């Protein structure tokens, strides 16, 4: 005991002014009850760090920002990195717009700093490293599925680099997302899954859902209004839609425990803000929320003013006397109408047979009286050979000439087709884009292990500034809920939306894979037969042979022999 006391004495209590940390962590959960009875939960975790990764600056001491991602940024001179893993397809017409859109499978787009000389090599290396970090097959990203969009993917952070030489975009629509991708994603959080909102992220519930999407976005952002200081933002988002019948047992009654099989007991102690928002806009009197909260907040989200009930987890009284928060949301009635999303798109393959086909992309403008332009990006693998002369864009039965077309033809086994165009969508209309293609025959080693399943073609991306019904907030640095502050808003009258269509599944002509052996055997046999007869002709000598005596003669001879008479 004395010893311990002595040890205590030996350690002087150093009383220095503690430096203000330059990093900040926020966490947030938004719950939006959907009209279909499903429920949408969106987690956002944001780490802001006032540091400089630019221009080869060596950053090596990390606190809240994960070291592995920091090293990736500095090693590969990344300016912006956006990666998402999604299982399931977001049903825009049933669910409305998501806070953060993402296509099925994996999507990765990266802006490099302009100091990078060999962008392709850096990109290749980066995808390999990221596939290690996220346990995903991003290493299958190569030149055949990478494109450089010229207009669709602008940097979301500061910096107005528009030279798309430094941009790379790739999707892997076939990627299957599961627990092994969630675990490394959770590891990037400062509190891990030990405290705060991340306690709810249990894979057995998250993957038992209709839609699951997790993403990491890294970008430089402004710290203040004048943008005097910049900082790096790491945003980790996770969106999940629980099914009414599957997870909710058909009852329109949701609770944190029912959704995640956990309740909340504390905020992450490192977080400067930790909040839960419940969207109660559509029918405030139809929900019953317990425990009730008096805190209400309004925010402009996706061109609409929404009202939220807010639970602040940093306040101890949120948890009540039981020291645990289990939010309960109960519908009183199923009345009410959903605001129809203004922009919506779908896509399908038409045609029959295994030689040609046609891709149809339908873009809906549901705005009653405003037309607006959209940017359509299509990246089609080289084995679907697009006939670009058959490209037609029609709306309301009339030809709709795109005002901008950027087309990069494919090269076999080298790069995919890239088609980008700016189309004006007339009010309350459907615009159809069709293009015909021919299916290529692959080499037998290029087929996937299950070729009869078909080949995936990534989603088309439709980016647009949609006219807003309410004035949007253009101040990017003002304190706002995280979910409403991702896409920068430049003007009050419109807001940015990105819509992804369904990925396509296309059958290619598939050979019988025992064919090579059969071909070898057949050719060898044909050659051998031909050779054999030729050989016989060349080497055999032909001579006339006495015809053999008939049967009667032979019998007669036998009898004659027995009689001792000379044969005939």
């Amino acid at each position, binding site marked *: 005991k004395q010893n311990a006391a002595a040890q205590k004495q030996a350690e002087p209590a150093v009383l220095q002014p503690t430096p203000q940390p330059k990093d900040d962590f926020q966490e947030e959960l938004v719950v939006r009850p959907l009209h279909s009875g499903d429920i949408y939960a969106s987690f956002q975790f944001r780490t802001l760090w006032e540091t400089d990764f630019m221009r080869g600056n060596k950053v090596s*001491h990390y606190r809240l920002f994960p070291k592995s991602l920091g090293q990736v940024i500095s090693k590969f001179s990344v300016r912006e990195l956006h990666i998402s893993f999604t299982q399931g397809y977001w049903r825009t017409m049933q669910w409305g717009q998501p806070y953060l859109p993402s296509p099925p499978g994996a999507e990765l787009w990266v802006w490099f700093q302009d100091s990078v000389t060999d962008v392709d090599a850096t990109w290749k290396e980066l995808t390999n490293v990221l596939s290690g970090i996220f346990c995903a097959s991003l290493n299958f990203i190569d030149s055949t599925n990478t494109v450089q969009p010229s207009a669709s993917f602008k940097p979301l952070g500061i910096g107005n680099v528009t030279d798309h030489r430094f941009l790379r975009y790739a999707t892997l629509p076939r990627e299957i997302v599961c627990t092994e991708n969630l675990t490394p994603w959770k590891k990037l959080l400062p509190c891990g899954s030990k405290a705060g909102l991340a306690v709810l992220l249990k894979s057995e519930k998250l993957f038992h859902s209709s839609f699951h999407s997790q993403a990491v976005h890294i970008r430089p952002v402004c710290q203040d209004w004048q943008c005097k200081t910049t900082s790096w933002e790491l945003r980790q988002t996770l969106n999940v839609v629980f099914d009414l019948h599957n997870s909710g047992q058909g009852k329109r009654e949701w609770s944190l425990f029912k959704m995640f099989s956990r309740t909340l007991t504390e905020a992450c102690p490192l977080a400067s803000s930790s909040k839960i928002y419940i969207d109660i806009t559509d029918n405030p009197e139809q929900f019953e929320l317990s425990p009730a909260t008096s805190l209400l907040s309004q925010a402009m989200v996706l061109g609409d003013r929404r009202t939220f009930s807010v639970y602040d987890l940093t306040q101890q009284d949120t948890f009540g006397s039981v020291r645990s928060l289990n939010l309960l949301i109960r519908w009183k009635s199923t009345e009410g109408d959903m605001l129809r999303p203004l922009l919506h798109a779908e896509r399908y393959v038409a045609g029959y047979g295994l030689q040609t086909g046609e891709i149809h992309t339908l873009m809906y403008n549901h705005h009653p009286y405003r037309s607006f332009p959209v940017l359509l990006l299509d990246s089609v693998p080289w084995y679907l050979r697009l006939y670009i002369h058959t490209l037609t864009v029609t709306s309301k039965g009339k030809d709709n000439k795109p005002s901008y077309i950027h087309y990069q033809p494919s090269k076999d086994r080298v790069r995919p087709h890239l088609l980008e165009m700016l189309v004006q969508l007339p009010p309350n209309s459907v615009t159809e884009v069709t293009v015909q293609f021919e299916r290529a025959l692959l080499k037998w080693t290029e087929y996937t292990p299950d070729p009869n399943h078909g080949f995936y073609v990534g989603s088309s991306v439709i980016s647009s500034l949609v006219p807003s019904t309410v004035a949007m907030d253009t101040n990017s640095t003002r304190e706002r809920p995280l979910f409403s502050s991702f896409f920068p808003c430049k003007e009050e009258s419109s807001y940015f939306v990105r819509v992804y269509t369904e990925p396509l599944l296309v059958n290619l002509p598939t050979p019988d894979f025992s064919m090579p052996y059969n071909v070898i055997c057949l050719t060898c046999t044909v050659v051998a037969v031909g050779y054999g007869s030729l050989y016989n002709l060349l080497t055999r000598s032909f001579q006339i042979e006495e015809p053999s005596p008939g049967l009667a003669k032979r019998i007669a001879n036998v009898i004659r022999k027995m009689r001792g008479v000379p044969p005939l």
Partner: protein
Amino acid sequence: MFLSERRRGQLAALSIAAVVIIVGVPLWWRTTETYRAWLPVSQIKELAKLQLQLSADVEVVFARGTVTPEQQKKVPLTQTQEEERAIDGDLIILFLILLIRNTKLESKFFSCHVLFLPEDTALRYSTQADLYLLAFQDVNVYIGQRRTALLRIGPQMRVGKTLEQLLAHLEPRIKQVLQVMSFSHNDITAALSDRVRFSPDNKESIADSMRAFKSSPGYEITFSLLNPDPKSHRLHWDIEGAVQTYIQPLLTKLSPVANFSIDSQTLYYTMLGVNPRFDTSRSAYTLNADSLAHVINPVEARLGSNAASSNPVLNFLLYVPDAQHSPLYIQGRKKQEVPSNAFHSPRWGGIMVYNVNGFYGSEPEFPVDINIDMAKVMGVFLAQLRLLLGVQSSTPPPGFLVARCGSTGLADWELDRLMWSRSVENVATATTTITSLAQLLDQIGNIVINDNIAQQVSSAVTSLQLAVAELEAGNLGFALQYSKEAILASEKAFFDPSLLHLLYFPDDQKFAIYIPLFLPMCVPILLSLLKIVSEARQRRREKQAKKD
């Protein structure tokens, strides 16, 4: 003249057989052959039996009053000594070149200066900002920070001895000095630990040789602050300043050996894998030495690997126990307290437990802001870093005094020793890699050897030969450089993906595919050849019979 029909058939069969054998078979062979570039097999075989010659120059200087001027003139200019050490078939010859002459003490690289001093001089001697002081009477040998050693000659050797006697007396002592300052037997064994099979009796030396990291062109040093209880402790550590003050000087000094990069991170909610036991007698928690092995695994899952490079990572963890398990002490094997409260794990890194309950004050209000005393922490980590990098100081023989390493944390001769062992280790590793690659390629005949692999192999062999030659000449810097190049080239060749590119079909399957072609083609040819031979034989027999 008309050939008989029979003769014509025979000729046709023979010519077809000839065409098949002369054109068909070589054509088939050439088109199905795998490409194999030429490899310097004989040179690799020579390298497989590692023969290293290491040399160390020693300059011996007699201070005034130790020898008479006449004697000094008679001192031989050079004297070479050889020492042979065979380790498990690898022959290592250690050269000692004794240069005995009164030259100026210029800092010649890769040489040791041994200065002899009269026994009663008040030892104050300074050279290039090094101040040597032999204050104690029982110290006979002083080893300085640079490559200088001071030796005291006993009174019995002072007067009236011939030069031969003097030299004979000095020789074993110089050897002793050299044992400390240069490459000793243990170092060689450690450097060659991959190639040498250990006898079971010297377990201690195995442990020593396994502690340091393997030689690598670069290392990543990661300092992690583990805070399992962020609700009670708000920790602040000035890692940036501490690295600049304590670690960077050592690494700058070590820069000829390897590249280092340093980073740090803070990890929250990271628990040790072992529940510490509460010791009522000390009212503290203790971790037993036996359980330390289980501490690391759960922590390591959180540490994260280095995404940006493939160099080995040295982890240094500072663990601040949570408020409920505080204070926490590490207990040695004999239940005694470990004063530094730290331990290291061979080839992995070190962990230090930092108790903060002294900061609580009388009525702690959580969370408590705590500034970590970096001098104390870095002292421990620096010692562990030295051990893990293989800068181990073997205990000097009695009568020796080794200078305390200064601000850089590393004496010049220690650096030399490290470079020596790294070069030898690199040479050994690269040789093993190249030899096994050559063996593999020799055994599996249908691996394609591309030109770039052949080029890597030959450049590795060239670098190896150069490294061995430079070691022989005593140019440590170049030797290390070449040995690094050899390692890089050999690893590149060994792990080249093109070596695995082709699918390797077994030979019997390959022939099974060719049988539908070969069988129908060869059977008629063989049959007709047999027939021709048997007919020829019969004709000869008939001729013989006619003659008889």
